């Protein structure tokens, strides 16, 4: 049986367009873009063209685009840059949220050890940060606000444009991790008042290990990787030319078809949500009103996520979970805890992230399979037994 891939928030299949664009740069046009001879200059041209495409897709200028090794590196560099710029002016306060990606959270934690103070804003039950909360958190010594565009586990979209405008009015740098948004919903760094933005190619059918940091003109970047003069001296290392070309091709394709893809994906996701909501004692996590098209996160009471995933895998469905048992750390996902789910409920979480490439038949098969597996796991769950007997109370 064919695999049904429903984990596109983790990574996506490289599209044919992206792959075809990349292939010549492995063994034909393999020159180093820094080399002066024609072969090298062809690679440099390909990169310049890619930079132009990426800039156009997000409303930036070419010289504001820095290619990196992915979303994580871009997050690291943006945050460290803003922190060091702040420090010079005695501004040692940073604002973020409790449900950022670890690339952001762990960078902030490192800065805390170095003397910075970080306010982590609540994301409320619906997984959306409030503009008022950002405003209240801002202090005279705030150097940076970093808030993700869309959350990777529950898919909720944040009021980025409003937060950007607020930061701009206060003269505070604003960074957003837009890894889960780019290619899926319209993002424009000018309209959205964004100073720095991270994106990652493998979340929109581009290759893994390539990403972009957009950094507004006039902001002096701090290097994470020292080296040669690549990326205007701000990111050392011979460029990943095939990856960069693939990033641009995938991004252009996603942006060109964004609206039609979103309409199709949302219809599929709503069908999935409606079907799975029929499972008793289940809940959808995060507001569906402010939501990326493809991601659906649900909890099913009385079951544990790793068992659910393994049994779905046996049915050829690839999905993910925020359960403690899948994390390796014995703690359920910090995102699910951040939206106020109790540990035992977060345990039974399932994230399905689909694209326009999925079909209605696949969605119906997922609904049928998840329903069966949840029923089976509940039939052998002491927790479900007690919930049914009433010795412990249902939470959802």
């Amino acid at each position, binding site marked *: 049986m064919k695999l049904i891939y429903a984990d596109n928030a983790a990574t996506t299949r490289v599209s044919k367009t992206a792959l075809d664009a990349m292939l010549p740069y492995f063994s034909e046009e393999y020159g180093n873009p820094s080399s002066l001879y024609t072969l090298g200059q062809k690679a440099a041209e390909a990169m310049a063209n890619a930079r132009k495409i990426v800039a156009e897709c997000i409303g930036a200028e070419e010289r504001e685009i820095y290619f990196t090794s992915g979303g994580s590196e871009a997050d690291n560099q943006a945050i460290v840059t803003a922190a060091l710029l702040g420090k010079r002016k005695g501004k040692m306060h940073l604002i973020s949220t409790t449900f950022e990606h670890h690339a952001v959270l762990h960078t902030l934690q490192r800065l805390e050890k170095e003397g910075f103070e970080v306010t982590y804003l609540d994301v409320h039950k619906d997984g959306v940060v409030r503009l008022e909360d950002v405003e209240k958190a801002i202090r005279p010594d705030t150097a940076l606000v970093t808030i993700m565009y869309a959350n990777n586990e529950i898919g909720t979209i944040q009021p980025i444009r409003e937060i950007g405008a607020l930061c701009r009015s206060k003269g505070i740098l604003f960074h957003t991790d837009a890894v889960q948004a780019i290619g899926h919903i319209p993002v424009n760094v000018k309209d959205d008042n964004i100073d720095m933005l991270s994106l990652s190619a493998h979340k929109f059918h581009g290759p893994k290990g390539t990403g972009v940091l957009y950094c507004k003109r006039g902001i002096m970047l701090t290097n994470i990787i020292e080296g040669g003069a690549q990326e205007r001296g701000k990111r050392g290392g011979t460029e990943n030319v095939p990856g960069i070309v693939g990033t641009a091709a995938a991004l252009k394709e996603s942006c060109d078809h964004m609206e039609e893809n979103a309409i199709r994906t949302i219809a599929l996701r709503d069908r999935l949500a409606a079907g799975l909501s029929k499972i008793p004692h289940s809940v959808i996590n995060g507001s569906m009103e402010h939501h990326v098209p493809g991601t659906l996160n649900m909890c099913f009471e*009385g*079951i*544990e996520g*790793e*068992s659910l995933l*393994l*049994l779905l895998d*046996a049915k050829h469905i690839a999905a993910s979970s925020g*359960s*403690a*048992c*899948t994390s*390796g750390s*014995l703690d*359920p996902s910090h995102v699910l805890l951040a939206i106020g789910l109790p*540990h*035992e409920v977060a*345990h039974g979480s399932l994230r399905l992230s689909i694209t326009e490439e999925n079909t209605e038949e696949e969605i119906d098969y997922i609904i049928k399979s998840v329903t069966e597996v949840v029923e089976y796991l509940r039939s*052998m*769950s*002491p*927790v*479900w*037994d007690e919930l049914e007997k009433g010795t412990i109370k249902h939470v959802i």
Partner: protein
Amino acid sequence: MLYSEKVMDHFQHPRNVGKMDDADGIGEVGNAVCGDIMRVYIKVKDNIITDAKFITFGCGSAIATSSMATEMIKGRSVDEALELSNKAVVEALDGLPTHKIHCSVLAEEAVKAAVKDYYDKNGIAYDKELFKDCENCEDCDACGNK
């Protein structure tokens, strides 16, 4: 792959799964940290465990170790069941990833708890030392008691 073939077999086709209405001993244990819960039922005749069943809320290896542990105590004497160690269960399953060893501790404890329940219900005297809260505290960091 995360798990051995044996683990996957016992996870996908668990032996002895289900509740037992006329059990002679029932043991339920939970892992305070990861939140998983295991319940083991035993049927005892002439000091021999004639049947064992389980229900488990937990990961793949929690289900697989429950399955294997109940297999290993069936047909054994109650005292032999008490000697079942999590290491023996792990070995029988051809190993577990390091961060999943605590799941097998849960299985050992569930079996012990079921035997203790059987002793208590039948007024059989036993050495309390046998049932310290957690036998393997020294070489297990599952619960953070260390």
